[in-house]
């Protein structure tokens, strides 16, 4: 029914596009130049001599190790989330018990707990547990803080499974296990991929937990590497921006393939 295009909003969105796109362009163009070339062409200019030496020097500066650590953290966080969230969401949607409803309330409340609020006790507990400066000590809290949103997204998807299907399985005398593995999981694949992408993103981009809970070079993750780089070699802008590019390449690749899963999942959080 709405036929006339909305020029004003269209214009606003183009302005915003420039605000988003321009910094990204500067970053990529700077990352493929050397310092002298970058200062000659200026931040907005086209790169004249394209070189990949920045990426090479980043990797020789330890970025490979940071990458590996970040991959370990990310994969483990996703594994934990996959292990505990689908059963939780199933219980939230189909359970009738008083405890289950209490757990759901707790996770709703948990949405509003910022990591900053618990970082000091977390440091205390992780140190007491002997996990300080150990990647496991980063993985556990990171996974815990991914739970509330994941539970919410997945239970939202599971709610859409029609009651008739449960009825049909009940007639077959199916147990909760059977219902879960034969009906609920297959029908909520989209939600499961959303929570995988979402928790992976949180783990990959995590900063506060690694900052406070690790110390040595061997446990450093990418985000901390970027931070150190910035304080140590703040002058070599192209090398620094090349490191930023390196940190986001995997994320953008995943986004390319899983855009729909991520966007719809997030839209569901606010939209409903």
């Amino acid at each position, binding site marked *: 029914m709405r036929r006339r295009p909305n020029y004003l909003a269209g214009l606003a969105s183009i302005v915003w596009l420039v605000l988003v796109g321009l910094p990204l362009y500067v970053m990529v163009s700077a990352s493929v130049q050397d310092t002298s070339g970058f200062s000659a062409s200026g931040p907005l200019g086209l790169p004249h001599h394209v070189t990949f030496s920045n990426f090479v020097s980043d990797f020789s500066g330890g970025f490979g190790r940071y990458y590996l650590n970040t991959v370990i953290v990310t994969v483990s966080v996703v594994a934990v989330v996959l292990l505990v969230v689908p059963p939780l969401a199933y219980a939230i949607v189909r359970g009738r018990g008083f405890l289950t409803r209490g757990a759901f309330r707790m996770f709703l409340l948990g949405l509003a707990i910022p990591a900053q609020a618990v970082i*000091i*006790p977390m*440091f205390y507990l992780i140190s007491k547990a002997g996990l300080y400066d150990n990647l496991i000590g980063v993985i556990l809290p990171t996974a815990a*803080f991914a739970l509330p949103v994941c539970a919410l997204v997945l*239970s939202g998807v599971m709610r859409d499974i029609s009651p008739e299907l449960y009825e049909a399985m009940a007639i077959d005398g199916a147990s909760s296990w059977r219902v879960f593995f034969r009906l609920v999981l297959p029908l909520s694949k989209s939600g499961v991929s959303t929570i995988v992408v979402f928790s992976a993103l949180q783990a990959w981009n995590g900063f506060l937990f690694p900052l406070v809970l690790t110390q040595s070079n061997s446990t450093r993750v990418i985000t901390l590497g970027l931070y150190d780089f910035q304080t140590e070699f703040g002058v070599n802008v192209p090398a620094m921006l090349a490191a930023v590019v390196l940190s986001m390449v995997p994320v953008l690749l995943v986004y390319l393939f899983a855009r729909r899963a991520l966007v719809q999942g997030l839209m569901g959080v*606010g939209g409903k």
Partner: protein
Amino acid sequence: MTSIARTVAIRRGRQRSAAGTDRVARPGFAWALPATVFFLLFAIVPLVLVAVLSFVSWGGLGSPQWAGVSNWTKLFHDPVMLQSLWLSLLLTVLGVAVQTPVSIFIGVWAAGYQRNRAVLSAIYFVPLLLSATAISVLWRALLDPNFGIPSQARWLFGSGNLLGSQAGAMGVLVFVGAWQYTPFHTLIYQGAARAIPRVLYQAAEIDGAGRVRQFLHITLPQLRNAMITSMILMVVGGLTTFDTVLILTQGGPGTDTTISAYYMYRKAFQGFDFGTGSAIALLLVVVATIISLVVVRISGYDKMRSMAEGV
């Protein structure tokens, strides 16, 4: 195992069918147990512990000593603390004021079916994927007074050293926050705008209402719930801004952008005063909760329960 579960399920099913119509096997609390215990341990327990730690004196080594309310009295006589609270609130309010109109505008636009919309919204979304660290490092380089964008446009930025003054540095923090989070809030509004029944617009059109009136009298009121969700997230996010401040301004110039979350980090992890740090953390949670409750109350949106059930 399976047979036991089945027997239990069938027995439970019989009880149900005696009372009502429900014969389906229901998952018990055991299904929720692993996630619940995990979350209790790593989120709820620390949240309780932060309250306890705010009454102790602890330097990171050895064991904490009970200190009564001394951390709190110190805090309320600390000018930097009071300033940091004020700056946190200012940053939050400015963030909400900038991001809300922009994201409503673009979100409603993106909910329509214009051509190119998919491509545009794919690019909009990119900042949300990046870590706050990457974004802060990027913007710090872009805003460098010597070789960044301001040095290319002195007519617009004056001296070019945006981070050198309080107004400039706060402005940068608000801008970078908006750059990062507007896509997310746009998405919330886009989802909500899609859900508005089209008949409302058709009826308004028959009544001869123009686009502006349709927006003011249909779209905005229908977006109320989305607005509340989005604003609460903005408040919590704004009050807990941390990475951006640590990398972009280090709380400076002086203490001009030392917001509470950053002050907490400095007190605890640089000043080794974990008791005072905990008090600041607890204060932040309390302030965020109060503001969220006020937003909910003012907007008359006390249907949190129905939202919980509808998710």
